[in-house]
């Protein structure tokens, strides 16, 4: 290598500074945006390590998958109820009068390359999204993560759940197939049941009496633009508050209300969370490949006069359907009006109560416990037996309502009469939460008195003494648990470069 080029390289390196091109780019950015200090703090941001903090990530990443697959689907879906004659590769439906919405969904499923996979992934991701939100919310509830100062984020999260359910229902309705059309019919009737404003609301949402021609185009724009934008904005707010207020953490060695112990954003958390995004995407793709979901060619296009047996909505609508099934047929008629209580109470009042109690819960708990302190350390669920028991009772209640949405299937499967199944579910819905509350309370109390609860168990070594007595001594903690016993340290700050190769006289290593 010539001397001149070596000098040249050296000059370049000198100009670039110790961090080379990346450092230069960062400097240019910092000149304009002033990001160096904040960026450094962000790289050092600590994420506590606990498996339960991953639940919210599942929700976030399934939402990412929803956005990506959803964009793909909008390229081919036609939101129109104009009728066309179906001529496609699915021969049993050939020559049928169908809507463009159904026709284009069939086109996505059978003709568009990768279309069926994207459709099934989109549907699976939605079911996972809502499910992950619910489980994440249960984690936040049972550990008391919603307490001051995080009440606002609890509210945003709950709103996200409602929007996710609503947008899921809208999307489920878009293909205009027989099953989802029945779902829209039920939604129409539920709106209609609201006293005073119900029929106006239903007429304006649907653009007239059922079925109306406005439904699919309106649902489409709500489903692909308006609600996703709102959800995206709220997710942004949710994450902003999370960064601003920093994570909660479980109590443990060196963990206080004044610090956060865990892994830094870069590189550990970034690696884990990006990997996790891939895992969620991979599992969704595998589900889309191997688990059929919403095969609209088996249902056929919507026809208000037809219906299929054992029709059930997506899982997150199950509790409403169950409530509608088991609520008695009490209708109010008088004063020249009808109030369809048989629909209004289970489908409007009941979810209204559930979600409002959830919204108000942080406030209610502060009122009852008179605890107005700031909390960053999480509760162990067993340490708050009343809250835990209440949450368990509500979940059991919802689960029972969910099961009640399959009374006909249960009756068929177990060869019971529909009547006994219905009455059984009515009793279970009321009785099981009443049993669940004291049971969960008692279990919490028991767990409180169990020493070392929550820690990983180690085997005992049983030995016999000279006197013949048997003594059990626990073995030391597992090796991989030892890491957690270390004292936490601030993220070290490297400011030096990697060492160069030793330089011999006259010879220089070549920069790559």
């Amino acid at each position, binding site marked *: 290598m010539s001397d001149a080029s070596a000098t040249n390289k050296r000059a370049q390196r000198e100009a670039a500074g110790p961090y080379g091109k990346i450092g230069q780019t960062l400097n240019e950015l910092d000149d304009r945006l002033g990001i160096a200090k904040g960026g450094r703090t962000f790289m050092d941001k600590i994420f506590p390590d606990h498996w339960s903090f991953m639940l919210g990530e599942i929700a976030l990443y399934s939402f990412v998958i929803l956005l990506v697959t959803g964009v793909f689907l909008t390229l081919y879906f036609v939101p129109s109820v104009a009728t066309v004659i179906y001529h496609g590769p699915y021969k049993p439906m050939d020559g049928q009068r169908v809507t463009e919405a159904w026709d284009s969904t069939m086109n996505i499923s059978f003709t568009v390359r990768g279309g069926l996979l994207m459709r099934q992934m989109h549907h699976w991701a939605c079911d996972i999204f809502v499910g992950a939100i619910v489980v994440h919310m249960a984690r936040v509830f049972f550990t008391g993560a919603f307490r001051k*100062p995080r009440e606002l984020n609890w509210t945003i999260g709950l709103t996200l759940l409602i929007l996710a359910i609503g947008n899921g229902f809208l999307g489920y309705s878009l293909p205009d197939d027989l099953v989802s059309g029945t779902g829209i*019919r039920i939604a129409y009737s539920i709106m209609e049941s609201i006293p005073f404003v119900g029929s106006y609301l239903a*007429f304006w949402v649907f653009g007239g009496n059922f079925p109306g021609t406005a439904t699919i185009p309106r649902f489409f724009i709500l489903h692909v633009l308006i609600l996703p934008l709102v959800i995206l904005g709220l997710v942004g707010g949710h994450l902003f508050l999370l960064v601003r207020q920093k994570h909660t953490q479980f109590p443990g060695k060196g963990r206080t209300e004044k610090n956060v112990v865990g892994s830094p954003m870069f590189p550990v958390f970034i690696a884990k969370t990006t990997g996790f995004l891939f895992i969620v995407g991979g599992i969704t793709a595998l589900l889309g490949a191997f688990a059929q979901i919403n095969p609209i060619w088996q249902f056929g296009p919507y026809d208000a006069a037809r219906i299929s047996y054992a029709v059930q909505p997506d899982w997150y609508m199950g509790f409403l359907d169950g409530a509608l099934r088991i609520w008695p047929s009490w209708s109010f008629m008088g004063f020249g009006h009808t109030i369809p209580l*048989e629909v209004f109470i289970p489908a409007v009042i009941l979810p209204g109560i559930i979600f409002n109690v959830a919204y108000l819960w942080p406030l209610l708990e502060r009122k009852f416990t008179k605890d107005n302190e700031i909390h*960053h350390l999480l509760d162990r669920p067993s340490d708050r037996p009343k809250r835990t028991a209440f949450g368990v009772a509500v979940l059991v209640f919802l689960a029972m309502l969910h099961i009640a949405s399959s009374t006909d299937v249960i009756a068929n499967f177990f060869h019971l009469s*529909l009547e006994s199944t219905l009455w059984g579910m009515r009793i279970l819905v009321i009785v099981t939460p009443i049993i669940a509350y004291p049971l969960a309370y008692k279990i919490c109390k028991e767990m409180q008195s169990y020493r070392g609860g929550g820690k990983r168990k180690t085997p005992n070594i049983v030995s016999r003494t000279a006197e013949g007595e048997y003594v059990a001594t626990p073995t030391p903690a597992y090796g991989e648990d030892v890491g957690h016993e270390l004292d936490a340290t601030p993220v*070290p700050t490297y400011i*030096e470069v990697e060492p160069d190769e030793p330089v011999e006289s006259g010879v220089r290593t070549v920069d790559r």
Partner: protein
Amino acid sequence: MSDLEEHRTPVSLNGLSEDDLRLQPLAKNPQTVERVIAVTFLFGTLFVAAFGASFWVNAKPWILGATMGAGLFLLGVGLVAWGKYLMPRGPFVEERHTLANSDADREAFAAAIVERGGSVVKRRKMLAGILGGGMGIFGIVALFPLLRSLGPLPKGTLFHTDWRKGSYAVDQTGRRVNVGDLAIGSIVTVFPEGTENSDRGQAVDQTVLIRISNQNFTTQKGRETWGPMGYVAYSKLCTHLGCPVGLYEQQLQLLVCPCHQSMFNVTNGAIPQFGPAPRPLPQLPLYIDSNGNIRAQADYDQPVGPGFFERHRVTGSKL
């Protein structure tokens, strides 16, 4: 030789030595773990490439999903393992600063809003009042045209169907139903002639026609002429939530709604016998004309389908 060529070793500022346990990976044998992760990444990459190839040749959907899913999954697992086992194990700590500011800052902020705003508004109460009123009224008024243009007012169509005096009952293909068409115990969905292909016909007018017997059949007092030659007709819309009451249980003479299992007894005026439906299915009065065609005597005597607040606002409705 300039300073640049000097040796430099990584030095941490907070007094951690390079071999501090917290900076070491969690893996006991990092080389092995690295090799395993490398293999995982390799297979993940192969699968992702296979996804591209199968997309190119338009392979079956399950092959696309399997290759993409396996590829992403393996890459993800490898990356998580890299983060968990090969990166500094920690734990690391970060101080949590109180979010609340000092009392002085808080007071200044509150003062800026309350004092400054208050002094301005207090002095110009009238202006603020009128502006507030104007903006409020605009907010309300802006809703009206938006709401009102969304759809028609809930009038006629909720209360009446297309069945008229003399309407022919036709099946879904538009064929008129004749008295000889149905055997006893048979059922057919009928529409008033001309609506069988319209959305509205499907959604509102749909009616089940059942032949119960050979004789004129009376389902309830006052309906002696409604069931000629054993033909009775009920609205097909469930009075619970409007699903089509499509299942006919012939032996029990029940119409069953598959949505929420409401059951209506067709022999006694479709009174709900089970389930959440609160009202009988409205019955359509029929007659048989000289050609033997089944026709309607009139429209239903009450609104069909689920309940709503203004249900009674229909002339002559007793129910």
